[in-house]
């Protein structure tokens, strides 16, 4: 990849297509955050590929002046795997939603994460099906009344952070649409990460699930409910840091800061190999209700699928030499007829 830093204006990353999300949709903010970030990411735009599935979020590639595939429902991680492993020089980004990634595409998501394919997955979680006009999603809270659950959803929602950590993801993070700085910081970390990155972005659907994340965005409540995970820092939150996270018997708990010795307060370490603490942090909330961790949960190094596949190809070429057709078709033994 070219080492010459490439910088663009945000408009260079905008395609000529009119953005067609509903007015007020959280997707606009995320699109702006991504375009701003990519303008300064240092990668030329012909090397960037956006891959999406189906859903509101999946229209994202049409608005980026990069290469893009708007594929089919749930399959974006699989399509992106094919893109990434075919051309390791590319910077491959998946844009997905909670229904796309966790419901119809759940299988592809976990396998892309497990394999550590060099793709960055941005999952916009609005806890609702938007494009199909308002059915409950795999992240909708139990009891959620929607068109397809008039008496309330009876389903236990998924916790995307727990799922990703359980699926052996090497990079797991959560942001929220309104917090552009947090999103930009996480995108930067994701870009620099070798392997698959899973980024959940809470995204407000003002039409079908308005204010789902209000506890984390409302001026009056956000301080009390945002647990900002910062590598190397003590995990305290709330007004004047009066709340803290401690790990007791391996389980993350929220305590009053004044009740514990300062040394007991959890100092966040994104590089911890053992995923148990990151997992436990993900269990502090099961959705954006009450104190909820935001930021990078986990970032560890592991060989990537993309590199390993090409490593084997290089090794085969070294050992056997570049493949020759004439040798191949004779490899099972031949005889002559004259």
């Amino acid at each position, binding site marked *: 990849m070219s080492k010459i830093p490439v910088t663009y204006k945000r408009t260079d990353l905008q*395609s000529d*297509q009119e953005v067609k999300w509903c007015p007020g949709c959280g997707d606009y903010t995320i699109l702006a955050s991504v375009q701003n970030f990519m303008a300064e990411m240092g990668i*030329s*735009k*012909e*090397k960037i*590929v*956006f*891959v*999406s599935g189906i859903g509101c979020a999946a229209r994202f*590639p*049409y608005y*980026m*002046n*990069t*290469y*893009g*595939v*708007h*594929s*089919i429902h749930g*399959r974006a991680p*699989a*399509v*992106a*795997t*094919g*893109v*990434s*492993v*075919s*051309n390791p*020089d*590319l910077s491959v980004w998946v844009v997905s939603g909670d229904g796309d990634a966790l419901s119809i595409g759940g*299988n*592809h998501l976990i*396998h892309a994460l497990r394999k550590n394919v060099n793709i960055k997955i941005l999952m916009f979680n609005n806890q609702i099906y938007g494009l199909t006009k308002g059915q409950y999603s795999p992240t909708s809270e139990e009891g959620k009344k929607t068109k397809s659950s008039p008496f309330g959803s009876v389903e236990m929602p998924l916790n995307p952070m727990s799922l990703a950590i359980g699926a052996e993801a090497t990079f797991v993070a959560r942001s929220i649409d309104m917090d552009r700085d947090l999103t930009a910081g996480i995108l930067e970390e994701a870009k620099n990460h070798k392997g698959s990155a899973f980024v959940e972005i809470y995204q407000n659907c003002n039409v079908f699930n308005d204010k789902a994340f209000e506890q984390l965005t409302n001026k009056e409540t956000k301080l009390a409910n945002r647990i900002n995970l910062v590598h190397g820092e003590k995990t305290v939150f709330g007004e004047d840091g009066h709340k803290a996270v401690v790990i007791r018997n391996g389980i993350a708990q929220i305590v009053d800061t004044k009740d514990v010795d300062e040394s007991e307060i959890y100092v966040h370490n994104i590089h911890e190999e053992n995923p148990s603490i990151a997992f436990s942090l993900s269990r502090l909330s099961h959705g954006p209700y009450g104190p909820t961790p935001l930021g990078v949960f986990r970032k560890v190094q592991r060989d990537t699928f993309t590199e390993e*596949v090409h490593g*084997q*190809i290089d*090794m*085969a*070429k070294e*050992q*056997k*030499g*570049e*493949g020759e*057709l*004439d040798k*191949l*078709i*004779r490899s*099972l*033994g*031949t*005889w*002559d*007829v*004259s």
Partner: protein
Amino acid sequence: MSTENKTVESIPAITIRFAGDSGDGMQLVGTRFTDTSAVFGNDLATLPAFPAEIRAPQGTIAGVSSFQVQIADFDILTPGDNPDVLVAMNPAALKAHLHDLAPNGMLILNEDAFEEKNITKAGYKVDPRESGELDGYRVFQVPMEKLTKEALEEFDLPGRAVLRSKNMVALGLISWTFNRPLEDTENWINDKFSKLPEIAKANIKALKTGYNFGITVEAFHHTYVVEKAALPAGEYTNINGNIGLSWGLIAAAKKANLDLFYGSYPITPASDILHELSKHKNFNVITFQAEDEIAAAAASVGASFTGKLAVTGTSGPGLALKSETISLALSAELPLVIVNVQRGGPSTGLPTKPEQSDLMFALYGRHGESPLPVVAAKSPSHAFYAAYEASRIALKYMTPVILLSDNYVATGSEPWNLPNTEELNELETNIITKLNTEDGFLPFLRNVDTFARPWALPGTPGLEYRVGGLEKEEGTGNVSYDAANHQYMTDMRAWKVSNIANDIDKLEIHGDESADTLVLGWGSTYGGITQAVNRLNEKGVKVASAHFVHLNPFPDNTLEVISKFKKVIIPELNTGQLLKLVREAFLVDARGINKVSGEPFTAQELTDKIEAIINE
């Protein structure tokens, strides 16, 4: 060794079937005998048949595995009809296969396996050797297990391992009876067990024991030889369809100057393509064993987007799962080859048996108006060329292409007269590296001859574009819901495919062109149909045949060919799928010969049925 009393009878052809428990190593014995005969110079064709279960209960009919091979001193096209020789390693194998054995056929039994327990397990009420049902066959009882145990006494091997070598005794005996040298198999054994020299020695001893049994026992002194076949001059290898197909893909990638990407999920009988391709990474082949069939297809679409020769392989049920993704490739107009090694269906069906029942599914098994080219392999060696042709069309026309094989082509083998690889045509692609208009890049501005759109690859500056499954505007490729545009694009996608008819081999007539009857086929029935037509022509019955490699579009002379004949007969291993297509496309009152028993047609069966229709 003494061969004084040996008489050698020369025969033009022989069909031998080896049958035993799935753990008895019958596939191996068959393959070894085949390879030895190939090197000797016979023409040949094989038909392996095995249960879907890896180890079905021992001694039962369900667990019987078999391998049939026909060797001949002339050009043959099928693995033979009724075997002339049946080797049955146990009562179940006898019960499962005796009904196929030709009258007065040679029946070699492993007599040690005919204990009461096994006889009952096979479903016999009385010992078939005593019931009279073997009358009319030449029965040879050989104590294979006893011979094996005695021969391998000197080796320090556990009892089970010793008995595993009994298949080598059988192979040795057959090698004696048909005058085949052992050297080739000895070399193979030494190579295979190079790290286990004791096992190698034991197997060679067992092989020689079987051979020597033939020398010693007078009953085997009448032996047979099938002389070399007068095949066209050339260098030959013995190839099965899965390997031929794999190599065809590698060759196509090489000749298109692209790398090959193969996405697949393990499924019988297509898995061997994945196995074969994963061996050849030094051809820059990427094999991707996906989490499921859908991902295998989806990753292949991703690979195609970046400029690979992308291929996804499967069998029937897997094709159903890939259907939605194939439509995406079709709509995005990306090249993709989809291999379907057909097996018996519906659902899990008969995973290890051949059937041609996915033809309609290949043509029409997608939502929306979604025509795509379909190519079918007609024999194991032809699978190489069919794969090459499917790749050519996909790349030249920017379209998914379905390549049909089936279990009969995939696992059967035949000698292949190797091509001069330099003479394989270079394959064109639509890769574009510069703007195609002064105002910018139009990803759906088509080639005026092929209607193919340009293939812009990520990494190419200035050609950044987005493509997906939503309807695209002609030229710009932008999402469009415009009514006239959708009509146009739907028509365009159909024209693009039907236009390929001008760019494929014409339908050729085989046999008696002056006949009134044409036998029309596709895929793996090629050998059976051709042999049947040859037999009828030799008898003086006027009949011709033609065989489709391209099922969509049909070659542009198809109507002309069909119009020359009064009667059209279409044999298929389905309930009449090509029949419906031909009747619809050419308004001809064609007749079907149809079979869905999980077995291929035999040449004799087709000969009889075709003749009966001619004589009506």
